[in-house]
């Protein structure tokens, strides 16, 4: 049994006087212990909402979550608020996108790390602070004892994200969700943070859900990748399979829109047409059809199902009537 089993997870936002908005529409995936799973897609594809739903961090009012998310056999979605609080920070950790706004500006770094240990380990503030210093050291923050009494604005962006990682990993959770952990950082720092995450996860055998729009992050870190579009998973494959043979036109488009140094001279970048704003719901036909270069009549009429790839072998699933032929791929060698 997988550590986390997400089945048919849906999230609908309902606001007074507005049309209900389906952000996540029947997402299913598994995460094994120690495995790193990527959720990839453009902003608005539902990847962050999926993670918030698993963590139980969505607002209670105006949000309807359905489906199932089993963690170690326990259904998370039906747990009481108290039971969920006992698990968050303890067994489920989360790292957020913007480290500056995600840290409380008026509370010392020390307390922000220590309070989670205090809460779940039942330690005194003093004992928790000692552990907090050790944690800061472990995530690569120099001079951790002094940092304990400092405040977020005194740290650099990279250091802040390290502090957030320390908080998320403080109680050695079995599952860590990282929501765009590098987006707000400088490129050089991004690589450091990714390396740190990879190292810590490997060391502690923690399962990791990596949420990102950056295929580079996926290539460097994930064992398995779920590509999301319009609130649904459209393609799932192992990292290497996905990059070698992207089958869904959307995945293909994502890869093709990355500039490459080794591309033939004069070849133009091929961006995906339109934007997510053109989304149509999945009720009839494929949501990606209006932007899809491969769209055929069936795509507009029949909603594609998630099925094993009919052509390419391997453990992969695909939601497409007219996938990209393996032969015309250009980006076969990317990052391998």
């Amino acid at each position: 049994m997988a550590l986390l089993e997400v089945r048919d997870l849906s999230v609908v936002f309902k606001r007074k006087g507005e049309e209900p908005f389906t952000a996540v529409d029947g997402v299913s995936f598994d995460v094994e212990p120690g495995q790193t799973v990527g959720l990839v897609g453009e902003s608005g594809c539902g990847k962050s909402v999926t993670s918030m739903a698993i963590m139980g961090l969505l607002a209670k009012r105006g949000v309807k979550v359905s489906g199932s998310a089993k963690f170690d056999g326990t259904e998370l979605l039906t747990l009481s608020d108290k039971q969920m609080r006992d698990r968050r920070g303890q067994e489920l950790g989360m790292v957020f996108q913007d480290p500056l706004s995600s840290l409380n500006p008026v509370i010392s770094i020390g307390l922000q790390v220590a309070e989670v240990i205090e809460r779940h380990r039942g330690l005194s503030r003093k004992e928790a602070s000692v552990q907090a210093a050790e944690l800061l050291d472990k995530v690569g923050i120099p001079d951790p004892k002094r940092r304990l009494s400092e405040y977020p604005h005194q740290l650099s962006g990279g250091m802040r994200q390290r502090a957030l990682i320390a908080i998320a990993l403080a109680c050695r959770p079995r599952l860590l969700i990282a929501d765009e952990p590098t987006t707000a950082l400088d490129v050089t720092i991004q690589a450091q943070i990714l390396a740190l995450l990879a190292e810590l996860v490997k060391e502690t055998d923690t399962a990791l859900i990596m949420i990102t729009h950056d295929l580079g992050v996926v290539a460097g870190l994930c064992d398995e990748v779920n590509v999301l579009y319009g609130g649904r998973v459209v393609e799932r494959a192992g990292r290497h399979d996905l990059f070698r043979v992207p089958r869904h036109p959307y995945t293909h488009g994502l890869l093709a829109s990355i500039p490459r140094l080794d591309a033939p001279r004069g070849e133009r970048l091929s961006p995906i047409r339109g934007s997510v704003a053109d989304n149509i719901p999945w009720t009839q036909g494929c949501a990606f059809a209006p932007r899809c270069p491969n769209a055929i009549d069936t795509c507009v009429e029949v909603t594609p199902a998630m099925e094993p790839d009919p052509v390419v072998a391997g453990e992969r699933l695909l939601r497409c009537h007219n996938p990209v032929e393996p032969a015309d791929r250009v980006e076969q060698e990317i990052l391998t």
Partner: protein
Amino acid sequence: MLRYTIRRLLQLLIVVGVLSLLLFAWLRSLPGGPVSALLGERATAETRARLTEELGLNDPIFVQYIKFVGRALSGDFGVSTGVQPGDPALDIFLQRLPATLELSILAIIIAIAIGIPLGYLAARRRGSVLDNLSVVSSLIGVAVPVFFLAFLLKQVFAVDLGWFPTAGRQEGGIDATRVTGFFVLDGILTQEWDAAWDAFVHLILPAVALASIPFSVVFRITRASVLDVVDEDYIRTAESKGLTTPVIRRRHVLRNAMLPVVTTIGLQTGALLAGAVLTETVFAFPGIGQALAIGFERRDYPVLLLLILCSAGVFVLINLLVDLSYALIDPRIRTRGGGH
């Protein structure tokens, strides 16, 4: 922190300096000039000429200003012509200050004690009946002229119901010992409980009237601030740690939400004197506000000058104190310049 304090103190000095210049100019441009201001319109030409010479009004203007500052620094602000004719303006100020302080302190306590908890509750239950009712009442609180509210309170609770006295600081029959000039405090110090209680009862209605605007503002800022903070990313982080709700509220929400509220409280405390002019007049409460009102009515310029200068000084001083206490609760200001 020390450098910050010194810089702010210097700013205060500059403001008071510029203010004295402005007030000096103000005094000079009052109808008929300072001579008429002091003697009234009907004085003879001879007395006018004598006073003009005495006041040094024939000197160049900057000499006059320097003399004015010199006299002011030695505590000589002239003699009252209307409020308490013959008394030095400074005495009037010092004698009335405790009354207004007592009143203002009670008013701001009322505003805080109701405004903050109500603002917090309203934000927590956004859109509820409690929320809507308190928002509307806070807006009405700003829309009602203070002196009219004071009158209504007096009419209903003092005149019609007879629950409170209608005017003054103390009932005539009570022979209280004066120690500090703060009547409630005096009563407590001398253990004359009836005097303390009587003085306190006299404070209630004017303080409620005076509290109406600060209450409205504190309430709305608290509500808006809490609403802002609960949407912040760091609250989501706190939730992701599995912290209990009370800890999140106390440690993460309230602490951040109080920052703008502290500022507002300082601002409103400093501005209380404007309301006191009106409330004290309605309740015949012998404080600074009443002296200002009488001073304007009878054009008692020496008293007005001193009282306005002091009220502005107090305003700036309170804001300085607020900024300093702000620095204590907001590390971003405390560690400014000391960072890395």
